């Protein structure tokens, strides 16, 4: 018998599970239009590989994984691609994202499915298949499973199969374990093989006794060494860090993941999808969704990815007075539009009504009662975090380990002043992330600007060098002329000069004709004087030269 441990805090909200847990999983129905978002997982959005007008088959890849942290998306039914564009998606912002719209033809015709021989294959190749078959964590975080199944950085000694399902109203994992336990455990066996984990433990909350029995029976049938453990039903006992502590007693350090203490946690739904993917080649095109709340017949539906959530609710029976839809549970879920499609993360669609979900009372001042600190499963000081987030003192909030908050909503649940505490933490977190991104962008801009200055400087220098080099070569070129050629040139110049002088000399002054003898004598005298002066000038220059 495994020794169980208690994590700090936690609450006991009303369960509301009986509404939907009694009825079996409803077979999938094919909507007329499937809207399949390309970003259904954490990380990079998938890249579309089909065009408008293409005919697609059920299970055909329509979006390719792009980058390491990514997963592929597939057509959930056969039909024609009618649009690749922005469509409202399941996101707290209500914003649109890139989606592929398929008009279904009702034939539900499968593409060729190839089982993967995972036992005799290189684990890296198996992980490639996991990525291409679109497997991502179905517990809510939708982290691509191919990465979680890679134990490269930290050896994993314990694999935990998370059947906690602690959120009120949701029963999809419960029904899955009751009806399809065999495949869940087959998936766990593949995970154990890839992770090389010594122990496999399945933690299931003790309010799901039928699921526990079914899992135990399947384990016996398979002869698979898995410990099926009933854990106390405390919200948020199904959180990754919480279930790790409950089952192993290992506390995940601040800012780390459960893998850092050698534990890897997978949702039972992920294990089921992994088994279907590798053993039958079926990509992740459907999941089980609890449709409950203000509907006529609450039930779990095997849902094709891309089915509008409003249609699911219509199928379960619309009721008058529905005031909106929540995707996920009442604790961690968020409001969605009815036309938003169900995605890999959709574990529950909850129809709201004024009676079931009365509007939150007005927020009153914090009275520092510290109820929230008692309830916090991450041992944080929510009242201080609230104060810092409210004052936008983000540095201080980070100092108080804001990022260890799992946004479970226990603090908001117990707050007597009805303060939406988690909203403040989410606001602070996204502000800090945005600032971090801005800082990175600024660093890149600084680097680029500095490089530009450096480049301009370098170009200037290079230009100057080029000019200097050019001048140098010009100078160097002159003496390198052949001496013969030079002599010839010199000679030519001398000859030309001589010719010019001769010409000058030959030209006789025009006023020397018809002169009297006196005049001629006078000229001769002047000439002789001139010659004398010339002679003298030569003499006076010569000694100066020797100075």
């Amino acid at each position, binding site marked *: 018998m495994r020794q169980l441990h208690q994590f700090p805090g936690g609450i006991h909200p009303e369960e509301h599970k009986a509404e939907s847990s009694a009825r079996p999983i409803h077979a999938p129905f094919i909507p007329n239009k499937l809207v399949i978002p390309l*970003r259904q997982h954490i990380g990079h959005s998938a890249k579309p590989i089909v065009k408008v007008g293409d005919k697609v088959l059920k299970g055909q890849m329509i979006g390719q994984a792009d980058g390491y942290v990514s997963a592929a998306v597939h057509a959930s039914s056969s039909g024609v691609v009618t649009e690749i564009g922005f469509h409202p*998606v399941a*996101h*707290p*912002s209500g*914003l649109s*994202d890139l989606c592929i719209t398929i008009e279904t033809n009702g034939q539900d015709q499968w593409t060729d499915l190839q089982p993967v021989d995972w036992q005799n294959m290189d684990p890296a190749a198996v992980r490639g298949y996991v990525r291409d078959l679109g497997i991502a964590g179905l517990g809510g975080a939708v982290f691509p499973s191919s990465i979680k199944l890679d134990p490269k950085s930290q050896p994993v000694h314990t694999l935990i199969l998370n059947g906690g399902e602690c959120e009120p109203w949701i029963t999809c994992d419960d029904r899955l374990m009751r009806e399809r336990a065999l495949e869940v455990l087959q998936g766990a066996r593949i995970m154990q093989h890839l992770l090389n984990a010594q122990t496999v433990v399945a933690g299931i909350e003790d309010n799901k006794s039928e699921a526990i029995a079914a899992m135990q029976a399947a384990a016996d049938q398979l002869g698979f060494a898995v410990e099926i453990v009933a854990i106390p039903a405390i919200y948020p006992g199904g959180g990754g860090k919480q279930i790790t502590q409950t089952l192993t007693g290992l506390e995940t350090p601040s800012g780390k993941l459960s893998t850092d203490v050698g534990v890897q946690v997978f949702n039972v739904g992920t294990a089921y999808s992994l088994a279907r993917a590798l053993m039958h080649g079926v990509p992740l095109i459907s999941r089980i969704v609890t449709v409950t709340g203000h509907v006529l017949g609450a039930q779990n539906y095997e849902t094709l990815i891309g089915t509008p959530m409003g249609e699911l609710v219509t199928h379960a029976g619309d009721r008058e007075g529905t005031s909106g839809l929540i995707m996920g549970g009442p604790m961690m879920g968020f409001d969605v539009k009815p036309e938003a499609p169900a995605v890999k993360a959709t574990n529950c669609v909850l129809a709201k009504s004024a009676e079931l979900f009365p509007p939150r009372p*007005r*927020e009153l001042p914090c009275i520092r009662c510290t109820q929230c600190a008692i309830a916090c499963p991450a041992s944080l000081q929510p009242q201080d975090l609230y104060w810092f987030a409210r004052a936008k003192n983000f540095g201080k909030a980070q100092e108080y380990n804001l990022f260890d908050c799992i946004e479970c909503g226990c603090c908001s649940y117990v707050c007597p002043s009805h303060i*939406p505490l988690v*909203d*403040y933490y*989410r*606001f602070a*977190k*996204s*502000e800090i992330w*945005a600032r971090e991104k*801005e800082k990175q*962008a*600024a*660093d*890149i*801009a*600084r680097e*680029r*600007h500095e*490089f*530009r200055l450096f480049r301009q400087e370098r170009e200037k220098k290079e230009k100057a060098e080029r000019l200097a080099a050019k001048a140098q070569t010009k100078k160097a070129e002159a003496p390198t002329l052949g001496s013969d050629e030079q002599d010839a040139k010199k000679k030519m110049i001398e000859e030309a000069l001589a010719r010019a002088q001769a010409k000058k000399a030959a030209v006789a002054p025009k006023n020397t004709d018809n002169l009297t003898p006196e005049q001629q004598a006078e000229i001769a005298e002047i000439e002789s004087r001139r010659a004398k002066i010339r002679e003298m000038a030569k003499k006076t220059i010569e000694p100066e030269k020797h100075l």
Partner: protein
Amino acid sequence: MLTAILVMAGIAILLGAVLGYAALRYKVEGDPLVEKIDAILPQTQCGQCGFPGCKPYATAIAKGEVDINKCPPGGEEGVKKLAELLGVEIKPLDAEPKPKSVAYIDENTCIGCTLCIQACPVDAILGAAKQMHTIIASECTGCELCVAPCPVDCISMVPLREDLPHWKWKYPVFKLKQAA
């Protein structure tokens, strides 16, 4: 008396020598304050502060030649951080910050003159003489320096649209209901 003077003088000389050596040995290249200020500035290199880039503005702030409120892209937040770093009073920005935008070149109008490429402080424009130019949007800081030099006015500033990867949770506010 004399001994005391000699001892004091000796100590003074010794300490002076140590300090002098330390000043040479641990000489700080550049001004660390400039680096710290530069780290706060948003690096748009837009010149709205009147200096040719963020670093020159940081240098001027460090010398105390200019106010800390001349950087609209840094916003109130930037002024707050600078005030904190320098231990001075927070001042309101002297210009309204604009919404974050990136430049967009109308490629039908562009004549390929390369003037915008020469103006871009972060080399975020791609193109060559007589070839069409385009903005590398992910590198554009939205400084608007390329808008003025364009002879055919084909560059416009497009405010950034809020999309999923850039969406932020809003500050929680209680919606007041209108009284009937």
